[in-house]
């Protein structure tokens, strides 16, 4: 195999993971179906009062997206770990954090982007006023990568362990609090007519920090789990 540059590795890995995921299309639908189902359960449980639904919509959509994204974590490393390809990947001269970044990006493309397409429609379903569904989707677009980047740490730590998926959820859930708070506050601030500035900046900052530190920590975790 020819030696790839960092960019080349990322491109190849993303293409590989997307192709592999596409071959298991039923898995892909899983996150989207879960997302839509969870969101649909809420009007059924709290009643159809439009004002109530409008006020809880950002929270519900965000939590549903967060949980759906968390579902994908099990597919991030586990399959490659099980068949030994993760060990092969790690042997490459490129830093493992690059591999992690590529895999996270591929997973996000395949599993989360459908959610982002569904989100504005759901926003409309919940009666969010003009422009709000797009703000909601934008906040999710910034926030869901963080869920995957931070979740990758948990997924990497629990490779090969019994009950890995539950354990991963337990490990990363507290770490999602900032993302959830900043994401929903971005939407709610605009709902109340406040300027978008501070909340969006905080959300963006969370994204940047996760982008920089997440793969590094996940790489360390992968190394630990592979020994």
């Amino acid at each position, binding site marked *: 195999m020819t030696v790839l540059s960092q960019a080349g590795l990322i491109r190849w890995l993303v293409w590989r993971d997307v192709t592999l995921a596409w071959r298991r299309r039923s898995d892909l639908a899983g996150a989207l179906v879960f997302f839509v189902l969870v969101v649909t359960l809420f009007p059924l449980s709290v009643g159809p009062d439009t004002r109530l639904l409008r006020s809880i919509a950002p929270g519900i959509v965000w939590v549903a997206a967060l949980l759906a994204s968390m579902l994908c974590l099990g597919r991030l490393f586990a399959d490659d770990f099980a068949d030994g390809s993760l060990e092969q990947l790690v042997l490459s001269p490129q830093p493992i954090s690059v591999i992690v970044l590529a895999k996270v990006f591929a997973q996000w493309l395949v599993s989360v982007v459908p959610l982002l397409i569904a989100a504005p429609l759901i926003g409309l379903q919940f009666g969010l006023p003009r422009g709000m569904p797009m703000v909601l989707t934008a906040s999710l677009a910034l926030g869901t990568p963080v869920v995957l980047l931070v979740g990758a*740490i*948990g997924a990497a*730590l*629990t490779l090969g*362990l*019994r*009950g890995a998926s539950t*354990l991963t959820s*337990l*490990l990363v*859930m*507290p*770490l999602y*609090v*900032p993302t959830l*708070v*900043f994401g929903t*506050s971005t939407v*709610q*601030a605009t709902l109340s007519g406040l300027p978008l500035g501070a909340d969006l900046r*905080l959300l963006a900052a*969370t994204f940047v*920090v996760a982008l920089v*530190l997440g793969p590094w*920590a996940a790489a*360390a*975790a992968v190394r*630990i*789990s592979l*020994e």
Partner: protein
Amino acid sequence: MSRHATRWVAYASPPNLYRLAGRLVPWFATSAGLLLALGVFLGLFVAPTDFQQGDVYRVLFLHVPASWLGMWLYLLLGFYAALGWIFKARSSSMMAAALAVTGAMFTGLSLATGSLWGRPAWGTWWVWDARTTSTLIPLFLYVGFITLQSAIDDPRRTDRAGAVIAVVGLVNVPIIYFSVQWWNTLHQGATIRVAGETTMPGSMLTPMLIMVAGCWVYAIAVVLVRLRQLIHRRESIDGGLHGS
């Protein structure tokens, strides 16, 4: 100066640490018993009845030390875990593992005593505000750490995986606290809390300090015992503790 350093570094070896911990435990245990007994007695019977809150404030003598310890033990856990990871020091990693259960216990107590104080003081068992939520999250961090470590069989992986999650948690704690504060200021309007940290008169401060000291000493004693058990279990697997 370097001779002192070498003396202390010797305690990083598990057998020496085992012996040192063993010598310290009786002192800490008895001190803990005395301090806690004294603190409870003063707190329940000697401290005067508060003008505003009646006798319910006595729960604070438990709540404040528990909150403190819950927080500080997590910081120590993160510190030792990081130390063990960076310097590949088994003893430090074992210290982190030994701290976890006690820290979780105190955090849980902090939540419980907080509720038991809150209910008579302002009518609700639970308030979703910055302080209570900021105590709930560390509990999850503790439980995550403990669960992760118990799911792994290999001791080296246990140490290192624990270190990763502990350090990641530690780094996130200020961010989480900030976001909870942010969340709280956004959703103001529920109950307006009377500021908790009022200056306490001396007759109330003394039991508080004694309880804090007693809880700390108790924690040290308990953690050292757990550390000894960990060392014993680990080093037996690795081939026995060879005295030196």
